[in-house]
């Protein structure tokens, strides 16, 4: 595998390493549109699986924020054959829950004229209906099968632009994965929906409501974006979650979990021909369906700085975000390079200035695209002030760095360093099955070709000091800026 060394050299030689890697990758698409990427890596008899669904919280319908995430949870609830003690009876009882819930909703919709007694009676009936259905559930059977067969790292995540399901099996369980994964996306059963809704609500309490930084980021996004769905965090709003209905999640699944919208990465000790045979057998069963619609809302141009204060008894924290174009912009590579110059490692300007030399920040950094990249997004800075130093002081110092980057061109050595770092980062990504499965899926879906993982290095090589200066001047401007910061709550008590 000596060829990897070539990846370090620019130009033509680099293309050879890509060709070498291509030998390990098998790509195919089923007639129903589902795409597979198989990466052979025979170092150990283990395999990692990654299902990348091209749907995320940006696709949540209005009033149902968080529903993409809610379905992700339901994807672990099993099927008719997995997770039920008595499917016919369970199915009837699940239908009954919805009938009762419909009655309850119908009464609630009367608003001021609703009869509280009827509501109470309906709620009691709903509770009973749920208890009856729960009686038929074989708890967590889907998870149990995976875990007892030696599956590791099983989890899923819902982001703004994607939903991901992943875990690894010993090599002799490959077919089990094909069976389980195809079953759950072919005919999932939405059992225990209303309890899982509580769990999802708890997750929001943990990640957002009880986390000072979570609250600040939520305020930043809601302030910065006026219209685009990036304004809502993937978890959704608490009141939307509280009112999710099972048919809403089912509708969402039917619309977005179509085979053409799903890409699967399999990396490890796997035979591509075998994998293809199993893919056809198991996933070929999923009927072809139209691709879901794309988000139509385009964020209007921001016409001035926005600021938002978040009351928090925690220590101060600051986030500053600038509007930037999507990952498909020709400026994307230059923005990546800019971010690395500003905050990469211990040589990043922000670290050197705020943390190391002025000692006014405990930590500070930037992220080139936030919260995601498929749509126009944000270039984010964050600062955690040191004790005894204020947010104002840090904000000022950060702006001085930004102005400096706009005025002075970075030197060639800095550009060269960033290129090397980005190359090495790619090589280091290639040493795990789970990383490979996920990266290749992500690049394939986001750019139409997994090879972009390699070819984007060529784009980085083309970025010049002029480009870096130009994108800083173009995007890091006051009119596109949103500043979110914490303030101490007003205090009562002794003076």
């Amino acid at each position, binding site marked *: 595998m*000596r060829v*990897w*060394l070539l990846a370090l050299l620019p130009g033509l030689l680099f293309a050879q390493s890509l060709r070498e890697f291509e030998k390990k990758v098998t790509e195919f698409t089923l007639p129903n549109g589902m795409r597979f990427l198989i990466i052979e890596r025979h170092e150990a008899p283990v395999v990692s699986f990654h299902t990348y669904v091209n749907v995320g919280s940006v696709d949540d319908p209005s009033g149902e924020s968080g529903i993409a995430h809610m379905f992700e949870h339901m994807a672990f609830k099993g099927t008719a*054959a997995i997770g039920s003690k008595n499917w016919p009876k369970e199915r009837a009882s699940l239908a009954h829950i919805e009938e009762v819930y419909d009655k309850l909703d119908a009464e609630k919709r009367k608003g001021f004229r609703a009869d509280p007694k009827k509501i109470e009676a309906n709620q009691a009936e709903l509770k009973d209906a749920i208890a009856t259905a729960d009686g038929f559930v074989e708890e967590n059977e889907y998870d149990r099968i995976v*875990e007892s067969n030696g599956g590791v790292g099983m989890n899923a995540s819902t982001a703004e632009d994607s939903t991901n399901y992943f875990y690894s099996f010993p090599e002799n369980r490959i077919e089990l994965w094909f069976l389980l994964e195809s079953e759950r996306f072919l005919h999932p059963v939405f059992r225990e929906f209303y309890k899982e809704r509580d769990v999802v609500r708890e997750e929001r309490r943990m990640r957002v409501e009880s986390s000072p930084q979570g609250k600040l980021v939520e305020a930043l996004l809601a302030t910065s974006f006026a219209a685009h769905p990036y304004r809502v965090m993937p978890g959704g709003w608490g009141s939307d979650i509280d009112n999710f209905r099972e048919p809403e999640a089912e509708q969402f699944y039917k619309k977005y979990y179509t085979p053409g919208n799903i890409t699967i990465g399999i990396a490890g000790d796997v035979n591509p021909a075998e994998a293809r045979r199993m893919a056809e057998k198991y996933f070929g069963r999923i009927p072809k369906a139209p691709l879901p619609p794309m988000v139509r809302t385009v964020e209007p141009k921001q016409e001035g700085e926005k600021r938002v204060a978040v009351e928090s008894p925690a220590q101060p924290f600051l986030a500053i975000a600038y509007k930037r174009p999507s990952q498909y912009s020709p400026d994307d590579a230059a923005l990546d390079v800019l971010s690395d110059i500003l905050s990469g490692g211990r040589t990043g300007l922000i670290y050197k200035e705020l943390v190391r030399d002025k000692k006014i920040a405990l930590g500070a950094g930037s992220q080139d695209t936030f919260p995601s990249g498929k749509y126009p997004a944000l270039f984010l800075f964050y600062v955690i002030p040191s004790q005894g130093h204020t947010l104002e002081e840090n904000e000022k110092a950060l702006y001085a760095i930004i102005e400096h980057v706009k005025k002075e061109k970075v030197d060639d050595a800095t550009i060269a360093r960033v290129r090397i*770092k980005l190359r090495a980062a790619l090589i280091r990504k290639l040493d795990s099955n789970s990383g490979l499965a996920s990266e290749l899926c992500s690049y394939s879906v986001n750019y139409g070709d997994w090879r972009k993982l390699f070819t984007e290095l060529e784009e980085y090589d083309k970025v010049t000091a002029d480009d870096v200066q130009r994108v800083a001047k173009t995007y890091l401007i006051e009119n596109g800026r949103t500043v979110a910061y914490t303030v101490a709550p007003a205090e009562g008590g002794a003076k």
Partner: protein
Amino acid sequence: MKRILLAACLAACLAGGLFAQAVASYKDLKYPPLPQVKIPEPTTFTLSNGMRVFLLEDHELPLIHGLAMVRTGNLFDPPDKKGLSEFTASVLRSGGTKVKTGDQIDEELENMAASVESSMDETSGSMSFSALKENGDTVLGVFKDVMTSPEFRQEKLDLAITQTRSAIGRRNDDASAIPDREMARIVYGPATPYGWQVEYEDLLHIHRDDLVQFYRRYYFPKNIMLAVYGDFKISEMKEKLEKLFAGWTVEQPPVPKFPEVTAKPAPGIYFAEKSDVTQTFFAMGELGGTLRDKDYAALQVAANILGQGFTSRLLSQIRTKLGYAYDVSASWSANWDHPGTFTIRGSTKSQSTTETLQAVRVELDKMRTAEVTPRELDEAKDGVLNSFVFFFDSPAKTLNRVMRYEYYGYPKDFLFQYQKAISAVTRADVLRVAKERFVPENLAIVAVGNPKEFGKPLSVLGKVNAIDLTIPEPKSDTKPESPKADAAAVERGRALLKRAQQAMGGADKLAGVKDMIQSVDMAMGGTKMKQQNRWIAPTTFRQEIQPIGIVAYSDGKSGWLSMPQGLLPMPPPVLKQAQGEIFREWITLAMSDRDSSRTVAATGPNAVEISSADGQSARLEFDAGTGLPGVLIYKETGVGGPPSEIRETFSDWRDVDGIKLPFKALIEQNGKKTGEASVSEIKLNTGIKPEELSMKPEPVKK
């Protein structure tokens, strides 16, 4: 036309859907045996200077990595310099070497997209490097220089201390991190290296020389193991390392054993209040065991059935069935060389706090009273045995394991002994170890949350002990360069204070004041308030604030707080503020030289620092012309907030019964103006009684 239609239909059918081919149940799948795992065998040897080396080739990617273990740990921190080992490890890298500063090393390494790092754990120090193959030699050279000739430059120690001070100040911000930390303190004991935490005070005692001494004591070849893996040839690497480290031959006596754990069970319910969360975070724990424990495998199985993974009892019951929590788990975390803890942790919405803790207890009791089902046992064992291959899925894991076994003195085949032990665990074993080791009576239950939103109060579960999260201020922080030791400064301080007493009307007059009533109009931010302060010498104090309707009373030791929501005992942070107010009461402060528990020392030509034995302190600055104390500066820790510096500037001095007192004050916090106070009336020696001050307000009738 017809034919085409039929063809389209056929294509659609073949593509799936209408005649979906039935697949077998997962139960019918047959699994071939796994191919034999190739476990690479590391090459081990000892360099001539005594350093142990472990090498493994891995040619998949053009990278070289290294990891060294140093026999030391933060368990060796001196009690008054907690954190020393971690400062040593971090400044070892950031402080540079004899010939290069840390910043130069940063640049050099990042120009090669390489890294060299150094860190400290409980029972080991570690150093690592990672390099592209082509830079292997250069990076290895930097790694060796950092390890063998660190310079510990002062500026980097200063930076590390600044960073740590900020981190201490932020340690209560994230509620989810508090329970584990507090539980460790309770389970191991806060005065032992296993339970203590680094405080502001420690930072004052750590100097560059301490780092140098710590480094010398522990960083020597015979005390270090080094593992290197990646794209190289063993024979070449062996030669390279021998040459590279040949000149480093320092020796030290063998490092002593790590201290024993001396903890006794400290069961109980411990609660810390945090008002800015909607969830309660909890951890309950007791002392566990080591990896050598004969029951380790059975304990692992038992803990897994109780609370590991999506299928565990805790998750099934509390997340899936009750919907109380997103996250709840149990773990038997055994350490290599000293007992770990058995811990159940999780979080739940505030309303269901008590119910969740009760539900956890029910599951724990079930583990102790009945055997687990055969299916539970099989699945837990299968989970471990079927995923066993993942222990060997990368050469790095294998190499790391081999080195760690040797470091802690474990047999080479320990992992396979464990595999065998897991296979042998029975249902009776699980019940027995659960009974013996998961002892509810020993559990320390720590919860952090907002009690105002609790459905059932925690006290339903038993007596609740309050945890004070206040971060202790350093005892000596407000005294620059210890004025106590300087007799001349004390002399000058007293003289300055005496001059001030004279300017205020004379020491005898001041000493004659036994009580004071002060009415103040305050403007803070946009809010206007009326304050009435009543004080009886020496330490009885009552403050009323209108229109908010707050009354605070303290006798200096305890107190109460009445707010529109009700009356409560004064919480520790507020009590601290009240004690500060009492300490700074005008008359007492001006007469500090007559109080033997106070020290007065000059800190400048017109400034004194007054401090008390119980940790209070304040700085007074005098008007050079009049001698009156025009400025008062002190530190105050807000309720849950960071400590801030308060500066009060006085003016409008008026005569009250022959004593000069200020009627106006400007209040600044951390250099920013936050309020103005204007006194409307001061009355002295009114004869008020302590009972009047301690009288609680009538509850408001609804």
